[in-house]
């Protein structure tokens, strides 16, 4: 759904699975024109075999100047427009509104439909709009560099959107931000433990190892639950694993999580039966899988070609650092119940300090490097100055990073508060990173 730069996919409210226009495959298969071609009084839509030089479509393509939508996405689109007006084809050239000339912004599919079905006659539209809509009134987009006179002029001459394709709303909501956090904890604690052991930190006892493995498995389970819950058709989770498309990072991620869980379980098995060789192998395999679990979301997001903001190469580091932050922060919390050795304690705090500082730097870089496209610029604006600015500056930066680091430096006794702040900071950051780009209309 997020991968399509044209926002063509939607969740069918009847089947709760993803659907899209397939050019009437069910008709074409038996030799019938797509329905839209057939019905149009003005013969405005023409389909056919582009490879047949005698076909109407091939001749039109040869004769007319045509445009396509978003050629920069290299999707090789096969829908061509004659006299395609850029105001109609480029979503950023017109503004999304709640009310268009003859109707409201279409909210008839996916999560909207589900919301309405559940709340018929009870909740209000306003509730729904606030919860799900990218175009809710509070979410107006700040213009980019509004002071430049040329753009003000352009703004004035801006075309007006009079109707729109259905709005899919925020598809990836709290579940996704939540699972990024839980998997960061799950993989982070393992990575941290192995690092500590490798660096010869004293105090990596069997008790610590047990605790870590249990915590990791617990959060991995949570991750799995959130992942399945996020799917509109939870049974389709099986499809991800059992009908794999290997170049999808959803599949790769799914397998990473599965194998990570498997290796950590084996590790536990080794620990329990005290088979050192098994523990050793399982540990290393867990580290490898854990790394994958920590960072694969960055690649998954990058596959969402529709979302320019997620195309940043920084995202891999960002995910890895979040994993270390989450791991160390959680260790701090474990420290409240399990007594760590002083050197283990010191190591944990050190990693927490370093990763949080690095995190601030990374986010700084991520937001300040020049963004090439209008869409990602808009997201940055939204985060720094727009609708997400409060959440970002106060929730993510101040409470999630700066205050915890200050606490760690000023009074390590209060480390557990800073750990709590860091964990919530990760959640808030992920929420912003996941939600904000989805508020850009793609079509």
């Amino acid at each position, binding site marked *: 759904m997020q991968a399509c730069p044209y926002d063509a996919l939607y969740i069918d409210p009847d089947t709760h699975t993803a659907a899209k226009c397939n050019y009437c495959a069910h008709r074409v298969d*038996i*030799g*019938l024109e797509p329905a839209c071609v057939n019905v149009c009084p*003005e013969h405005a839509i023409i389909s056919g*075999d582009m490879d047949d030089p005698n076909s109407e479509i091939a001749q039109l393509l040869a004769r007319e100047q045509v445009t396509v939508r978003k050629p920069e996405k290299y999707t090789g689109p096969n829908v061509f427009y004659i006299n395609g007006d850029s105001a109609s084809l480029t979503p950023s050239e017109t503004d999304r509104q709640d009310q268009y000339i003859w109707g409201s912004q279409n909210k008839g599919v996916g999560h909207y439909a589900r919301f309405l079905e559940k709340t018929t006659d009870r909740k209000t539209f306003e509730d729904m709009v606030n919860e799900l809509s990218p175009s809710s009134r509070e979410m107006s987009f700040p213009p980019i560099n509004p002071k430049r006179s040329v753009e003000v002029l352009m703004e004035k001459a801006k075309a007006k959107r009079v109707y729109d394709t259905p709005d899919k709303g925020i598809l990836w909501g709290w579940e996704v931000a939540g699972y990024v956090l839980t998997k960061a904890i799950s993989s982070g604690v393992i990575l941290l433990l192995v690092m500590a052991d490798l660096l010869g930190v004293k105090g990596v006892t069997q008790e610590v190892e047990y605790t870590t493995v249990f915590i990791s498995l617990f959060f991995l389970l949570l991750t799995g639950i959130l992942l399945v819950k996020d799917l509109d058709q939870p049974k389709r989770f099986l499809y991800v694993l059992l009908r794999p498309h*290997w170049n999808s990072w959803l599949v790769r991620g799914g397998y990473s999580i599965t194998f990570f869980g498997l290796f950590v379980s084996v590790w536990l098995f080794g620990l329990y039966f005290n088979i050192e060789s098994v523990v050793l192998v399982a540990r290393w395999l867990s580290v490898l899988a854990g790394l994958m679990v920590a960072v694969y979301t960055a690649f998954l997001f990058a596959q969402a070609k529709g979302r320019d903001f997620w195309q940043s190469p920084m995202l891999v580091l960002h995910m890895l650092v979040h994993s270390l932050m989450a791991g160390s922060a959680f260790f701090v919390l474990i420290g409240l119940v399990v007594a760590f050795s002083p050197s283990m304690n010191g190591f944990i705090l050190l990693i927490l300090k370093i990763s949080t500082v690095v995190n601030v730097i990374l986010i700084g870089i991520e937001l300040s490097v020049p963004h090439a496209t209008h869409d990602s610029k808009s997201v940055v604006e939204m985060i720094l100055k727009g609708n997400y600015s409060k959440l970002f500056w106060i929730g993510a930066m101040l409470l999630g990073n700066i205050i915890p680091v200050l606490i760690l430096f000023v009074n390590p006794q209060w480390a557990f508060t800073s750990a709590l702040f860091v964990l919530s900071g990760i959640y808030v950051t992920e929420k912003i990173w996941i939600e904000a780009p989805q508020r850009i209309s793609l079509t």
Partner: protein
Amino acid sequence: MGHQPTFIEKIAEKVGLIPTLRADESPLPSLTEPGKLQGFPPPEKWDDWEEYEATGWARKEKKKYSIVPTTCFNCESACGLLAYIDKTTGAVRKFEGNPYHPASRGRNCAKGPATINQITDPERILYPLKRTGERGEGKWERVSWDNVLDDIAGKIRKALQEKRHNEVAYHVGRPGHEGYMDRVLKSWGIDGHNSHTNVCSSGARFGYNLWHGYDRPSPDHANADFILLISAHLESGHYFNPHAQRIIEGMMAGAKLAVMDPRLSNTASMANYWMPSYPGSEAAVLLAMAKILIDENLYNRDFVENWVNWKEYLEHDHPGTSLTFENFITKLKEVYTEYTPEFAENESGVKAEMIINVSREIGKAGSRFATHNWRAAGSGNLGGWAVARCLHFLNVLTGSVGTVGGTSPSAWNKFKPNFFDNPPAQKFWNELHFPKEYPLAFFEMSFLLPHFLKEGRGKLDVYFTRVFNPVWTYPDGFSWIEALTDKSKIGMHIALTPTWNETAYYADYVLPMGHASERHDINSYETHSGVWIAFRQPVLREAARRNGKPFTFTYEVNPGEVWEEDEFWIELSWRIDPDGSLGIRDHFKSPYRKEEKITVDEYYQFILNILKA
């Protein structure tokens, strides 16, 4: 096809964890060679058509249909539809276009396929309803068709026996048939037809009628070189689907389009010339254009000289002038002197330069000049009829009346059916419909009815509203509510309608009538140069016939007890005259079975047999 399952998938499918997506073992055959597509299933397969279900894609679910043609009822165009009747459920699954319909040619606007919404609407009226509380109170009970017919027939019979013929009226919104009701009303001997025409096309009709006795235009857009629309026919209006097809056809072949409209409609936005005229100024612009055609000698002398009653004009307005064509042109120039492009610009806001350019293009197009106005300016303004009159003036000057690529009178492109029986014309004149004040009106002064009743010009004992919603559609709806709730003015109000509407709320009976796929009608309209006839039929009735399922009336096969008017009026007329003493029964006797009541099948059989011959 392209999907190569991995071993994981194969195993999972085997174990039964996920459903098997095996390739279909007996795929449906393709109608065409690879790379080629066609629009519709071939008619020889309509009785037994199999295709894949759209919503079940990937699973390649097959579905068997019986395809029955009918005609859309969602505007007056009467475009063709094909109803796909699911052979398993027996219900209509969807509507597509009918490729054999000469006007719509398989294409439809959104309203055609949306017929499926109307027939499956969970809130539609399925049974005859009778008011239980006060009129307008909104309380109803279900009654039988038998009771309805007896009650209404008795009331009408009484009125006819007491010579209160003018107290029975049938008021129609969307007719959708050819002459059916005229025949019924004549058989009752009443002047009881009221229509919606004068909130619709009276203005344009009057303007056209003055010119040549035909009241509507039939432009031949497909063959035109220049098209002038005072309408938005690429997107809306009567015959929009058939017209839009042919306007585009004409444009693709090089025709230019000018649209006169104060609003940038989608049609105007596709035009070569958008002439944003001030509302009501259109005739001024058109006369300025006529003046240019005359002054610049761009008119068709042959046609004007032979086919315009200019001698009568000279005789009457310029007595003493010798009756030569040159004198007529001289006088014509004189009489329109003030209509300069500048004057027109001043009145309309359309730039003089554009008026000149468009006029010259029209002159160049000559007899290939198609024009259209029906409502729009013609229906908006005091004297709006002059817009159509001045528009047709341009057709007359260019000699594009009835030519290839020109504009024909409607009747030339319309088929009139012959009936099995033609009752004599009624001897009454109902002044509630045609009052003395409006001797020239086209047609009934329908929207003034509440005011006429208020003034005590008459009353109505039995008032049918049929696919007609004046409370909402007409101006001044509250005056309608006042009239409809006053039982001393309207004795009984019967609403025949396929859907609930604001007028039906104020009825005594609400009688459910069929949507497009649930009723019979013959249709023929002037959509283009050519004459066609279309047959609207209750598709489930036809399916029942094909399956040999027995039934007497259409409401037995339609959803609920939704009827269609043809049978309703036959039954009602029969019951108005139980002993035949009123002479009404004579007009409803079968042409094929002596002395017996005609069936709806026989009614159409007669018309179509003549047509075949």
